[in-house]
């Protein structure tokens, strides 16, 4: 299982999302590799990913992908992230 957390520059919000996604996966007892990427690098970073986590605004910047795109509204809401990841990987 490979998951990519995506933001515009790859230095800030994607790292927040990555950290909280790791916590959500621990809650779900799911083994996964979670990386952070920026929009420019998403084609490479997500080439073999099952899930892309991002904000509503960046969905259109992702382009064609075989991964499930999961939109997170509140990056600090572990309940939201856990529930949406459970649907995406369950």
């Amino acid at each position: 299982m490979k998951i990519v957390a995506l933001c515009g520059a790859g230095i800030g919000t994607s790292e927040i999302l990555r950290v909280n996604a790791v916590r959500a996966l621990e809650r779900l007892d799911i083994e996964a590799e979670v990386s952070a990427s920026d929009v420019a690098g998403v084609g490479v970073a997500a080439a073999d990913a099952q899930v892309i986590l991002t904000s509503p605004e960046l969905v259109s910047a992702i382009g064609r992908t075989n991964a499930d795109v999961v939109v997170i509204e509140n990056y600090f809401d572990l309940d939201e992230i856990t529930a949406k990841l459970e649907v995406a990987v369950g």
Partner: protein
Amino acid sequence: MTYQMPPLDQLPDAAIALHRGAPDWRAAVRRAAEALTASGAADASYGERMIAMIEEYGPYIVIAPGLAMAHARPGPDVHGPGLVIVTLDEPVSFGHAYNDPVSVVIGIAATEADQHVASVAALANLFNDESVIPALAAARDTDEVRRLLAAASHPDLG
């Protein structure tokens, strides 16, 4: 080359700007840029690059209710890793679908893409408590901000 960010509860006064006026989101981002400039992390042009990120990709930096995390890519106008906290006297709208209006702006700068991992993990720890954002917005002085940040300085990531 490894820069270490100071622990969040040791942020210098220059990195904390409280109850600043900002008529719109661009001004709010510039307040964060001014704090990054004052603390020596970046030049003023970095603020315009943070604004350009939002103009290009939309207000995705508004990552939780009331909280924006302004940032741009590493570049020659970044002199070192920087993290600043700005609170606004009046919340402003960034045009986000869920998380407007914004009362706390965190500005971050990095010279390398993976530089912020430790302090960002600490931030994730801090804001998982949803009461922290309104508490920061209401903080009256820099010591109060550092007290609020102290809870995040030792991230328990297991």
